[in-house]
């Protein structure tokens, strides 16, 4: 089975968050984690997904990841079925100021067979 990277550049979606990024997330605290999706909430005002991430000691923590609204994601090519529980993902994002294992996802790489939905990076960056 051919492995295709499905890269969805969330950072290129205009800010349509219903809250201010700064009040929830620390732009100076980027992270990259890999794991398995346990749940996807395809809901407004933000889609959320949850990922089981194993640390160096082999301990698993469930991370909560915020994305844009489903409306913004659909306009960028996502469907509610683009990412599902059980999918292996690598997530880049920014940590919450005060909540453990919580982040704002900037990009998601879904390592399963699939079409390349949207991979254009933001112009000017």
């Amino acid at each position, binding site marked *: 089975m051919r492995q295709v990277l499905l890269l969805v550049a969330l*950072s*290129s*979606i*205009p*800010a*349509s968050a*219903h*809250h*201010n*990024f*700064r*009040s*929830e997330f620390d*732009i*100076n605290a980027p992270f990259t984690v890999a794991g398995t999706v346990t749940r996807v*909430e395809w*809901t*407004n*005002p*933000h889609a*959320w997904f949850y990922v089981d991430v194993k640390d160096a000691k082999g301990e698993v923590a469930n991370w*909560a990841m*915020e994305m844009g*609204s*489903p*409306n913004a994601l*659909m*306009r*960028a*090519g996502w*469907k509610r079925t683009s990412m599902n529980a059980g999918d292996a993902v690598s997530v880049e994002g*920014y940590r*919450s100021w*005060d*909540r453990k294992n*919580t982040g704002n996802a900037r990009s998601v790489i879904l390592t399963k067979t699939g*079409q390349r*939905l*949207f991979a*254009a990076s*933001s*112009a*000017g*960056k």
Partner: protein
Amino acid sequence: MTHRTVMAIAVLLLVSSVQAQWLGYPDKRVPRNADGTPNLGAPPPRTGDGRIDLSGVWEASDLQEGAPGGIESTYSPKYMINVMRDFKNGAPFQPWAAELFKQRQANKLRDNPSIQCLPLGVPRLVAYSHPYKIVQSPDLVVVLYESQTLFRQIFLDGRSHPKDAEPTWLGYSTGKWDGDTLVVETTGFNDKTWLDGLGHPHSDAMKVTERFRRRTVGQMDIEVVIDDPKAYTAPIRYTQPQELLPDSDLIEYVCNENAKPVGPGN
């Protein structure tokens, strides 16, 4: 290539795969180039009575990246975050408005009404990155906002603003044509909305004048003048460009179906 252009191309490429609601349904009113793509530089369409036709799905454009470490790390329309950005010496606050603004910063903007899924209001909807649809008739222009699935009526039938109006989030709007420009005046606001993402406040005495100028099929400018002497010592004036989203449509947006303002668990 602008960021928005990249997005538009990506969405166009995805037309066959995106069946969500009516995204990608070709709009008969949009003129086409020989290759079938929308001719966004064509002159603006007109209605049967000769007025500029503002109808269509629009979104604030002129996206600019926020300062590193700033309030938004992502691109946003020029006046979404700060309507005072053109004031070299800062906002012309009245003292109470300056104090309230300071409190909102100290609170890390957590009392932003939109966190509670409350309406952004006028004029913030002019510079927000959610699409809206204009439906135009000779006596009434209706604006359908995807944000909070709100509607707004702009009456062109000669009526005056209501006296002692019940304050509302979007106010009471009347409009008239000045040549090819639709001039809309709105009063009767409550004082609960923010002017921008930074939390510049306003009072219930605010009057907002918007001038809608569709320059081409694909481009429209909305000039905003905020007159609020109770909150500011000078009018606030800015022009926020808008971009047509051709062959697109609104999507239902029920904000409070899963609002988690401070992350899961709270």
